[in-house]
């Protein structure tokens, strides 16, 4: 158990380091003259050179990578280097702030968005999937299958536009201003407002995933329900409710958890779209603006953020599945 967790951990860390190095090189090749992009418009060559010097862009790439990985000189008082404590990811010249500060400022928005959507889609997806397997071939199953299909076939950006048009624009113009136009209220400040601001984005992200999960939960349940031990449960005289919820779901859950973790990571892409449509000021939007602006320290930073989310969620899932597996115990 310990050995296993340790190797998972080593692998995750390796992944992050490789991502960092790769994104360093991609941005270095992609933005050929970063100093010019970062400097104000109409800047003179002197100013551009100044920016380059300030960001150590005039030094050879291996030194720059070294600054990134280990320890670089401070830029405008902000330290640099991943192995520094607290780890730092450099300085964004565009935003005139350390990258880590910028990400920490925006992260709560994106994390609230993704985790809230995860809770919603998992709950609804599992309930709908179990219901569809319980009444397989009946009306309920067909209706749920129809909604699942529609849901998983609408791209996030399209459902986002439709939701914002009907549930925000139309409602508001008819006098029901239930949902705000945009913005974010921290959870710590006002939990109700937090949820009210995020409800439509959550719905947007969750719709497609509910469709996917409903189908997968249903297929998993039907697979488990054909197993011998379900017949044993029936032979013991257990009620159908108990068989579905306690016996079948228990076994069907593992692949669902695994996929949930993967999708949570993938949802970062969907978060960018959702943040754009609903005017949420999160990491996703910041990332895309940074990429358009050539603000490469921020591009690397947000890339690292996204891969950390991926690594963390797969790590959590791995540990959860290991913990549920009786073979690893005792």
């Amino acid at each position: 158990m310990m050995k296993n967790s340790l190797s998972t951990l080593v692998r995750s860390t390796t992944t992050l380091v490789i991502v960092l190095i790769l994104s360093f090189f991609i941005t270095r090749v992609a933005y050929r003259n970063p100093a010019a992009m970062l400097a104000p418009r109409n800047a003179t060559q002197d100013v551009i050179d100044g920016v380059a010097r300030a960001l150590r862009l005039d030094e050879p790439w291996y030194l720059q990578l070294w600054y990134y990985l280990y320890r670089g000189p401070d830029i405008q008082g902000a330290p640099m280097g991943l192995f520094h404590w607290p780890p730092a990811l450099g300085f964004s010249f565009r935003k005139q702030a350390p990258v880590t500060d910028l990400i920490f400022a925006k992260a709560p928005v994106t994390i609230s968005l993704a985790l809230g959507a995860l809770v919603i889609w998992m709950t609804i997806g599992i309930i709908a999937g179990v219901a569809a397997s319980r009444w397989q071939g009946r009306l309920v199953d067909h209706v749920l299958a129809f909604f699942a299909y529609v849901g998983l076939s609408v791209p996030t950006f399209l459902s986002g536009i439709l939701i914002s048009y009907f549930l925000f624009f139309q409602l508001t113009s008819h006098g029901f201003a239930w949902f705000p136009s945009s913005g974010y209220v921290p959870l710590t400040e006002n939990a109700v407002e937090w949820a009210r601001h995020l409800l439509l984005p959550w719905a947007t992200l969750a719709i497609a995933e509910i469709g996917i999960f409903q189908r997968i939960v249903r297929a998993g349940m039907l697979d488990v329900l054909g197993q011998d031990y379900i017949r044993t449960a029936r032979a013991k005289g257990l009620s159908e409710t108990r068989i579905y919820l306690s016996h079948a779901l228990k076994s069907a859950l593992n692949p669902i958890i695994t996929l949930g973790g993967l999708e949570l990571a993938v949802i970062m892409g969907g978060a960018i779209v959702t943040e754009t449509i609903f005017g949420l000021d999160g990491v996703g939007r910041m990332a895309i603006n940074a990429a358009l602006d050539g603000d490469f320290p921020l591009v690397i930073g947000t890339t690292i953020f996204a891969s950390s989310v991926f690594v963390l969620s797969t790590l959590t899932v791995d540990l959860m599945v290991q913990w549920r597996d009786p073979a690893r115990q005792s």
Partner: protein
Amino acid sequence: MLAEGIAAISGQRKDTVSSPTLLQILWRERSVRIGAGIVFLVLLAALSAPLVALALGHGPTDQFQETALDEMGLPVGPSAAFPLGADGNGRDVLVRTLYGAQVSLLVGIPATTIAMLIGTLVGTVSGFFAGRIDRVVSQGIDVALSFPFVVTALSLLSLNRGGTGQPIIPPLLVVILVISLFSWTYFARLTRGLVLQLRTSPMVEASVTIGASKTRIIRLDILPNILPTVLVYWAVQLPANIVAEATLSFLGVGIQAPLPSWGNMIAEAQRTSLYQDQPWFLAGPGLALFLTVVGFNTLSSGLRTVLDPHQRSA
């Protein structure tokens, strides 16, 4: 396992008098029929685009400021001249939507195929040789999966900008490459799992004991048995990649206007809010995209029900 599914199906042949072919068995599945019907319509739409453009006299990028915009500068709704109305620049929405189908398929099909080829190759090598090679490949898959799609796509597209800001290779190609770069992992994980299972199967060990070489085993025992599954999952991944192209174009990272793509058409409708006056501006490309995805999803899920009774979750 899919191979067994097919084998079981063909095994049934001798029992029935009129032996149904695999195609006939597939055709009996309702979702295969519906899906294939919709996919056929999409193909027809893509092929008919130049004909419709010719018949209406509207090219996909032609702007008709005079006839397609009213005195307020708003696009006109559906009419005989513009069956689905016009967009904000006075272009024909129908013609652009039909051309959009071409772009979707031209990006989606090659991207999925490239991803399938790379993924199958990597997955087969990784699963068959196991050990250290497998660990390296798995690490590579982890890295590829953990890269954020959109942000990386943007960086890669900037990479394509030459000194003068002109693209070095056609942006369409870059979009294809970016999408295949992100979806090969799906095939790699699939084939790796299949090959790992087959590698220690009695079938392969039997070949080892009669002295078959590794390449012979891969060529005759492994590839033919995983290929049907991989092809079905090609059909599963295709709609996802069509959506990926649309999403990139929606975010302004993929196919750039004025070249029509459903993603950038929807983006334009949303950005200008003109769809509130001319709903078909959004509904045209929106419905087309939805139908395409539904069609491929239905078809692939039908294929899976017939050929792969134990559906994989990942």
